[in-house]
């Protein structure tokens, strides 16, 4: 436990207050209810004292001294004045100066109405300017990336954006240029601001200099309605504000949730609202007609058809039906889905993951789990997981902060270079399949790994562990967790990406689990087993809840074949995905921001998601659809409302006791509540030797991992993100390229367990020779097998 910092007492405007020693004055005065206007200061970044707006007077031995409160730490007995004539005059002067070159754009500026410069000029500025000369002019705006535009005239040179990209996100692609009379923010020519976090600069720019294309000229702030919610794009669960006008989502803004996102969002989260407004959203039920085409139908007709088909399959015997999905639903919907499959369909074949994640018992917190905020205190961080920058971007920011700001040792183990490598103390690379060997050597810690092992022995350790790529067996991750749990003062955070997959596991959407993190003694089939059963005829039907195995399953072609073979399929979804297109009945569901409920992030933190939009056409909440189906099949899952389900969860799932909507909506509950691990949670008892495939002695192995912008349905449904997905490529080690006679820029044909593709070659010396890396979901489907064959295409 860090010791409590000493408190100091100081006086501001005659009021006494106490704050921890070292607090900056601009923060400290808040304790006395005083606000100091400012532009460049941002509580999550280092102060620079650039804008001079935060000037205050401090009493000193030589009288009253003007100083910037954002750079001055409070000291014992300090006497501060923020409301004197001198301070007012200083603020007026600073504003007059900042406005010399600032254009009168307010009526056409997106920031107008929520602009710190506008507000503070109204509050503290001079009535008029003495400046009669011509203002500075620039062509406006210039695009500095595919998403961000820059109006240089409006910039007040506060350096928030440049500091963010340097200090926080670590991709300083924007900087001041031509410093002096013509200082401006800009990129290097031909090197756009292509950061995964660029949208944060738009949010923190204190004027309208930086704007984002998806929102530019779309609304005025006072026309927006907003609710606080949780980002639906990955399992970090960043807090956001959903903002809409005329029932159309127009932007997501980051909300500062200290233990999770600290105000930041990744661009996929921030601009990933567009799918909600997509014209491709399902807005009416579809049923298959005699010719085999999906045609529009009424809800009554579609529900009747779905219930009849499912009942017929169920009548063939117990366990003939299965359910896949729920990892993108709310906990309430997931819970309803579990009850529907188990009670109405009478089946234990139920999985929220698609063979690409971790053992659901790990997700449901069978082991003691780290919280993201443990990174603030970690001495050492071990990341043996997916490339966090690509899959869990804001977790990457938190780890990066631990390694840079907070000085933790960072050890990254991965088959190739990751986004964290530039700030890592040690990076270890291995061939997929040889992870067990790597783990054995690491645990042993001899030879060249001695220094790494020594770092890992410095606690507290936070270990972030998952499957770096598809080629890594989930049991390897468990073995790594078992190893990491034994490190000094260690806490383990098991990571996988899909947004509410942890909540789905907690709600029992797994063959081995019942709701509330309870083991299921009669486990059913998992995703692989379900798809096999459908293909072989052992299973007669399937219900999909927001799940697209034909795209997302590790062997997409196998999944597609299984869906073709399935006797009867009902798909509940937002889009007509490739899987839904194969269903017999398609039921349109309401999605994010259209339903209310809770979600659970990767640390087990339960947060609220809220409703703001009506959703398209006659789409309905998933739990209502499931209840209607259950009733038609002669039962009920008691899903009268999402709130009733929430109450039932709180009653059924011990870990969720007390985590009510009410508790999550106010005060500290808005940060979310971490559901405690189950009673007597057992550590994983896996030794590295126990579970793991033998290291591959094969010629070439395939490493496949996700990238942030892929061809997934939700990404492609929004125009801003859709265009950011790259073309697929094969990343080949230079030695292998020589061995196979391949030149960079040439093409190769790769053949894997589930398909074959011709791809351009990129040389990647960060791989271990003998490994080929192919990004997932960019269009090359090779299957999940480790072995791959490669030949040069001429």
């Amino acid at each position, binding site marked *: 436990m860090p010791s409590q910092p000493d408190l100091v007492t100081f006086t501001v405007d005659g009021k006494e207050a106490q704050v921890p020693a070292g607090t900056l004055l601009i923060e400290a005065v808040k304790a006395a209810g005083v606000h100091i206007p400012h532009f460049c200061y941002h509580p999550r970044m280092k102060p620079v004292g650039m804008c001079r707006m935060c000037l205050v007077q401090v009493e000193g031995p030589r009288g009253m001294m003007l100083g910037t409160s954002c750079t001055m730490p409070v000291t014992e007995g300090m006497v501060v004045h923020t409301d004197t004539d001198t301070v007012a005059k200083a603020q007026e002067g600073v504003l007059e100066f900042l406005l010399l070159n600032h254009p009168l754009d307010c009526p056409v500026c997106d920031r107008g109405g929520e602009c710190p410069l506008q507000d503070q000029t109204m509050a503290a500025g001079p009535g008029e300017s003495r400046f009669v000369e011509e203002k500075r002019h620039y062509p406006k705006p210039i695009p500095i990336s595919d998403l961000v535009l820059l109006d240089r005239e409006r910039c007040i040179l506060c350096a928030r954006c440049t500091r963010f990209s*340097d200090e926080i996100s670590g*991709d*300083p*692609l*924007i*900087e*001041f*240029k*031509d*410093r*002096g009379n013509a200082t401006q923010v*800009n*990129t*290097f*020519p*031909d*090197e756009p601001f292509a950061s995964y976090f660029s949208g944060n600069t738009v949010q923190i720019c204190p004027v309208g200099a930086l704007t984002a294309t998806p929102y530019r000229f779309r609304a005025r702030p006072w026309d927006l309605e907003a609710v606080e919610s949780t980002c639906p794009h990955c399992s970090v669960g960043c807090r956001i504000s959903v903002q809409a006008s005329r029932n159309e989502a127009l932007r997501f803004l980051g909300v500062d949730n200290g233990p999770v996102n600290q105000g930041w969002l990744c661009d996929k989260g921030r601009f990933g609202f567009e799918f909600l407004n997509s014209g491709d959203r399902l807005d009416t039920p579809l049923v298959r007609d005699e010719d085999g085409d999906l045609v529009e139908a009424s809800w009554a007709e579609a529900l009747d058809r779905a219930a009849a088909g499912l009942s017929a399959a169920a009548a063939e015997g117990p366990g003939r039906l299965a359910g896949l999905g729920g990892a993108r639903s709310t906990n309430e919907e997931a819970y309803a889905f579990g009850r529907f499959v188990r009670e109405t369909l009478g089946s234990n074949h139920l999985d929220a993951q698609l063979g690409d994640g971790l053992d659901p018992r790990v997700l449901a917190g069978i082991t003691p789990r780290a919280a993201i905020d443990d990174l603030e205190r970690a001495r050492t961080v071990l990341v043996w997981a997916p490339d966090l920058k690509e899959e869990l971007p804001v977790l990457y920011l938190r780890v990066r902060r631990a390694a840079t700001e907070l000085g933790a040792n960072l050890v990254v183990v991965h088959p190739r270079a990751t986004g964290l490598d530039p700030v890592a103390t040690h990076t270890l690379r291995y061939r997929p399949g040889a992870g067990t060997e790597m783990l054995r050597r690491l645990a042993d810690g001899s030879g060249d790994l001695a220094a790494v092992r020594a770092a890992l022995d410095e606690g507290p350790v936070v270990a972030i562990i998952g499957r770096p790529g598809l080629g890594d067996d989930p049991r390897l991750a468990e073995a790594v967790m078992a190893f990491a749990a034994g490190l000094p003062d260690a806490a383990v955070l098991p990571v996988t990406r899909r947004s509410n997959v942890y909540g789905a596991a907690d709600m029992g959407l797994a063959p081995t689990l019942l709701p509330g993190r309870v083991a299921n003694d009669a486990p059913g089939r998992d995703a692989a087993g379900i798809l096999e059963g459908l293909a072989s005829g052992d299973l007669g039907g399937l219900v999909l809840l927001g799940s697209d195995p034909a795209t997302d399953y590790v062997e997409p072609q196998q999944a597609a074949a299984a869906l073709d073979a399935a006797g009867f399929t009902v798909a509940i979804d937002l889009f007509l995905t490739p899987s839904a297109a194969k269903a017999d009945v398609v039921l349109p569901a309401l999605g994010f921001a259209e339903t209310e409920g809770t979600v659970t992030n990767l640390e087990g933190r339960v947060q609220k998601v809220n409703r703001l939009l009506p959703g398209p056409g006659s789409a309905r909440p998933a739990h209502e659809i499931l209840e209607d189906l259950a009733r038609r099949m002669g039962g009920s899952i008691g899903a009268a409302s999402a709130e009733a389900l929430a109450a039932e969860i709180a009653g059924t799932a011990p870990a969720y006791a007390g985590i009510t909507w009410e508790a999550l909506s106010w005060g500290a509950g808005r940060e979310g509540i971490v559901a405690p691990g189950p009673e007597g949670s057992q550590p994983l008892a896996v030794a590295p030797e126990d579970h793991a495939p033998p290291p591959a002695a094969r010629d070439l192995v395939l490493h496949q991992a996700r990238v942030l912008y892929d061809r997934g349905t939700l990404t492609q449904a929004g125009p801003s993100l859709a265009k950011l997905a790259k073309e697929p490529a094969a990343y080949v080690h230079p030695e292998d390229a020589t061995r196979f006679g391949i030149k960079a820029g040439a093409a190769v044909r790769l053949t894997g367990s589930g398909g074959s593709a011709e791809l351009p070659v990129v040389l990647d010396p960060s791989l271990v020779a003998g490994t080929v890396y192919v990004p997932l979901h960019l269009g090359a489907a090779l299957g999940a097998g480790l072995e791959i064959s490669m030949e040069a295409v001429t």
Partner: protein
Amino acid sequence: MTWSRATETRAAAILARYPEKRSAVMPLLYLAMAEEGGDLTEDGMRRVAELTGLSAAQVQAVASFYTMYKRDGVGRYLVSVCTSISCMLCGGDEVLDAVADETGVPDGETGEDGLFSVEHVECIGACGGAPAVQVNYELVEGVTPEQARSLCRWLAEQRPETVVGDDLQERFGGQRSFDWGPEEAEGATGPVPAFGPLGTTGERS
């Protein structure tokens, strides 16, 4: 991209002098300029970024602050006329006008034939001999507008391979602030003699 082997060796020697690689950015920029014949190109800045671990935008941020990093090319003779206070009081502006008129190259530009670049500069430390002029960073003091004209004519006609300050002073100079130390006949084609041994001045060696 990489530079010539000789330049890369010099870059490595410069980098080795600093505990933090990024601290070497300024001498490396001179090296980049020397490598490309006096012009700091985008490729040059990119290479400096690679060597220092900075982003190209960060290198550009440094390079664009200093006027002595020439990003728009520079002529064979760079004529810099001081217009800071001492020189201004003693007629620096008139000298600048004379140079611009005689060469046909306006302040801040390079002539089409690439012979002259003309610029005004802030104090070059020769206030005692104001007004002062530099040709390729070699100093001449006490220059009248007429002498400046003959200086330019002489450069255009003689096209000297190297320009040497003492020589210029003798031909075109007036009052000198003080003796500039031992005579050296090499001349400078770059702005930082201190890094001469490391090649940043662009001398052919």
